[in-house]
């Protein structure tokens, strides 16, 4: 009987945890607004149609942005934007070049929903992308 009661309480608590944590509206996402070169996704690269020549250098960029809320999560968390991580990753890969464009094949978005008895919650966005770096002359002005 005691075991059943404990299981019921545990079930109730585990049900309430996501309800409570659902109040914490958080979002994470990659963008490349810090770059001054085109970061192109998709098969069409130019206005009106057409593609750019892919560079000889291909890199896979793995980036991750996570946001964690602990406790009850009743306080709404600020919206977290992954504004710089991708830009930094691309720059480190040599994407800060002018005259060329960075092409991204796909974006891998992921969420790791982490709940423990302590009501921890974690959301991550991963960018695992095959990126072609244009082999043109680097220019400082193209960087952020």
């Amino acid at each position, binding site marked *: 009987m005691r075991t059943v009661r404990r299981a019921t309480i545990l079930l109730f608590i585990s049900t309430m945890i996501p309800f409570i944590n659902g109040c914490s509206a958080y979002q994470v996402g990659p963008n490349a607004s810090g770059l001054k070169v085109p970061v192109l996704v998709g098969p069409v690269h130019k*206005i009106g149609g057409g593609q750019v020549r892919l560079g000889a250098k291909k890199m896979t960029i793995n980036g991750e942005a996570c946001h964690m809320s602990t406790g009850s999560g009743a306080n709404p968390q600020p919206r977290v934007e992954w504004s710089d991580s991708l830009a930094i990753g691309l720059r480190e890969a040599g994407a800060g070049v002018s005259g060329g464009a960075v092409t991204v094949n796909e974006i891998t978005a992921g969420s790791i929903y982490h709940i423990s008895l302590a009501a921890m919650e974690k959301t991550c966005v991963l960018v695992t992308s095959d990126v072609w770096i244009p082999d043109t002359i680097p220019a400082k002005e193209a960087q952020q």
Partner: protein
Amino acid sequence: MTKAKWFVSFSESASRIVCALVVTGVVTGCGGSRTKVHLDNARYPVSMSPVMIDRDGTHVNSSGLVTVGKFQASTRGWSIGWTAIPLNTIDFSTELNQQVESAKGEAVINFKVMAAHPLAPDVFPGYFFLHWLPIWPGSVAVEAQGDIVRSMKSPALPVATSGLDQQDMEKGMNKPAESKTSLDSEPKVKKKRHRKREQRPWDNWDN
């Protein structure tokens, strides 16, 4: 119970709780979902930065582009096996083509992808112990946003035809001659309709 025995039992209980928390955290840390976002069938160029490539191959930033709308699409990615096995792949191409076309745009800039975890559809995955099961599906809400733009070099948009498309205009031009304009027809006198006012109790108070 002596102090030593109480301490031993307390430490055992505490260590069990800590172990349970660690195991729970490690196992359920894989809950949720992981999915890939594609734009394989997009008919318009999409850039994650504010810079786009123009028709002649030159870079054009936001000063050379006119924002004509906002792109927004959202969907849900599913996976099982502690997110190791994705069940679907997200492709926003259809939504992007439709929205850019309806906004008369030419490209999308400032494209970004966001992963969120709203509450309602995930109440059941919220059971942490169900995430222990590899067959239990997890999900993630994926939202894409961007600015729909046109190049300033592009030819100007046709003059707005107050909601009429080309077919309607052609139909209108082929209409028979009986459709007279207001100039060659007699002016119509609009008859004023007076609604009969109901008698109020206070209408006769002055009398």
